[in-house]
């Protein structure tokens, strides 16, 4: 049983462990953010960074409900969009100097976005949060469609197809930032990204944050420790809506325009993919997902037309073979290497990697060849000087051989692992 040396303190993580696991990652994150402007990034690089910052906050807010509370939503962009739209209206009021927010500093606009998103969450969450699981998912989809349709209908609120645009260089300046040049906007985005990350991490450490995990695991038991699971879900939903609205506020200042598209199912689906691909069981997962997918979105869409197909393939592959996402793969690798028998683990890992890369190669050749054939402009996929048309035998060899070989390697690897476990 208990021995004399066990105390309350000894059961809790030591302050060194706390520093290593909690403070240090955030410090590194902040340091990286501070170091980036020193590399003198290009304009494109800056706008990519800004989008990554916005998406980090957005994806983390999504994971508050999916990963921590077990609620799968197909309409999270509604809160992002409504928070953002509210900020666009405030931008207009600041420009005209009218209304209660006529003299509000633009720098703190994301706070208002938080309020707008949380308010939307409070209204919409009420009928939605009764049940979790599939029911919640369906309701979120219906509500999202309704709001998106309304977005195209009420022009004075949403600006119709063209949306609402504004000007961020008005109102009182904060910290000497006029927010005109792109490198000043960077500090604005960086500040709110850090605030969002710290805020949402802190939330996981609060009683409500822990109760939300408890409700995800076992809503029935939550009732018998004196809490109402519906209320837990509802409160978490409101706060997640708030952080999504905060990301919307960041986007409002960054892009100075919002269109009804931002409320639709497309951004809602994208945030789901970002969070899930990153890994919903880890706090850092959605951050990784946001960085990777935002980068892919802006870089790969220049490189290939079929980038959405690659995105879909990646998502399905993660759902089927790596449900803990990229963070799961990364942390699993680190643990595996640290654990005993690192050499064997590393070898097994490399074999899998080779299998995946081979299958990826086959898929890329197939997709790129098909895309060009489908366009019908007579273009041909020509990597490394090869001429891979759909009538070329080499093309089909390059498709079938890697796919079959990669599939065989992966199959064998997973079979060996099963035998090893048994």
């Amino acid at each position, binding site marked *: 049983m208990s021995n004399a040396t*066990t105390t309350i303190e000894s*059961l809790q993580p030591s302050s060194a462990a706390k520093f290593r696991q909690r403070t240090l990652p955030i410090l590194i994150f902040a340091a990286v953010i501070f170091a980036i402007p020193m590399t003198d990034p290009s304009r494109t690089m800056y706008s990519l960074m800004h989008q990554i910052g916005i998406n980090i906050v957005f994806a983390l807010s999504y994971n508050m409900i999916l990963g921590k509370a077990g609620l799968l939503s197909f309409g999270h962009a509604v809160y992002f969009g409504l928070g953002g739209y509210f900020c666009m209206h405030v931008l207009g009021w600041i420009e005209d100097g009218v209304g209660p927010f006529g003299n509000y500093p633009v720098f703190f606009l994301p706070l208002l976005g938080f309020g707008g998103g949380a308010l939307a969450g409070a209204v919409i969450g009420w009928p939605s949060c009764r049940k979790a699981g599939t029911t919640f998912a369906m309701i979120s989809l219906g509500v999202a469609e309704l709001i998106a349709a309304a977005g195209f209908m009420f022009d004075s609120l949403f600006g119709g197809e063209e949306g609402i645009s504004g000007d961020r260089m008005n109102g009182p300046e904060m910290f000497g930032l006029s927010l005109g040049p792109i490198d000043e906007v960077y500090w604005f985005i960086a500040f709110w990204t850090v605030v969002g990350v710290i805020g949402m991490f802190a939330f996981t450490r609060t009683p*409500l944050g*822990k*109760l939300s*995990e408890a409700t995800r695991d076992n809503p029935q038991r939550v*009732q018998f*420790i*004196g809490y109402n699971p519906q209320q837990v879900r509802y409160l978490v939903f409101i706060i997640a809506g708030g952080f999504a609205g905060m990301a919307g506020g960041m986007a409002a200042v960054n892009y100075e325009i919002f269109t009804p598209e931002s409320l639709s199912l497309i951004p809602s689906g994208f945030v789901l993919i970002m969070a899930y691909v990153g890994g919903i069981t880890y706090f850092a997962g959605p951050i990784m997902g946001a960085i990777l997918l935002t980068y892919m979105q802006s870089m790969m869409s220049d490189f290939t037309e079929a980038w959405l197909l690659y995105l879909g393939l990646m998502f399905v592959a993660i759902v089927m073979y790596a449900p803990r996402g990229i963070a799961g793969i990364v942390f699993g690798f680190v643990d595996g290497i640290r654990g005993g028998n690192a050499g064997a683990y590393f070898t097994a890992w490399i074999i899998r990697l080779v299998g995946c890369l081979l299958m990826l190669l086959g898929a890329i050749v197939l997709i790129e060849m098909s895309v060009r054939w489908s366009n019908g402009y007579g273009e041909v996929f020509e990597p490394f000087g090869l001429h891979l048309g759909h009538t070329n035998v080499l093309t089909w060899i390059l498709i079938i051989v890697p796919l079959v070989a990669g599939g065989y390697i992966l199959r064998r690897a997973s079979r060996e692992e099963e035998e090893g476990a048994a």
Partner: protein
Amino acid sequence: MTTPALSLKNLSKSFGPAKIINDVTLDIAKGERHAIIGPNGAGKSTLFNLISGLYVPTSGTVSLNGTLISGVPPHEINRMGLSRSFQVSNIFANMTVRENVRCGVLHSLGQGYSFWKNIGTQKDVNAKTFEVMEHCGLLDKANTPAALLPYADQRSLEIAITIAGGADVILLDEPTAGMSHSETDRAVDLIARATEGKTLVIVEHDMGVIFNLADRISVLVYGEIIASAPPSEIRGDPKVREAYLGDEALPEEVV
């Protein structure tokens, strides 16, 4: 006469045409250790679900310390001082033992749904969590994820969560089911210590456990209470012997 801790009056529950609980009337005094026994399918778990608010009675009432609680949602009944465990382990599988117990103590310490406090620095929460874990012999497993616990420890954790909130009335649903002899002995010891001075209602199949723990025993057969008396009288009751014939023999002697 003082108000009983728990009072069931003409309680009935039907699922469609099937009458599972039929006109049960039972008073359990404060501080009493009351066991409910009966053959499989007698309605013992249904009775617990009625008392704890999971089911709403078809007719009849349940009162806790004189307050009517039938129809009140489970979380509110829990806040009024009634806590229960489950027959199958019903814990928060993805959390550690410490986090499980901590969730159990939160409400009783007035933490509510707060999202502005750091849970790790709440001194009273940590002290109470420690105390409950110590009480239930779970200290050495405090940081083990609940899903990875051995079965007997999961049952202890189930009890730990149940008593963590400091409720006065504790309902335990087959706490020793599936345990070995030595594990059962330890569990009985734990239950006796953990419910000291409290009202205990326990459903159990292990007669040794019952005769060790209970002040009074009610026998539930086909949704009706056919006898309710101290253990010594129950053993001699011919009706009880008849109901149990071929099911489980009553022990001749208390171990």
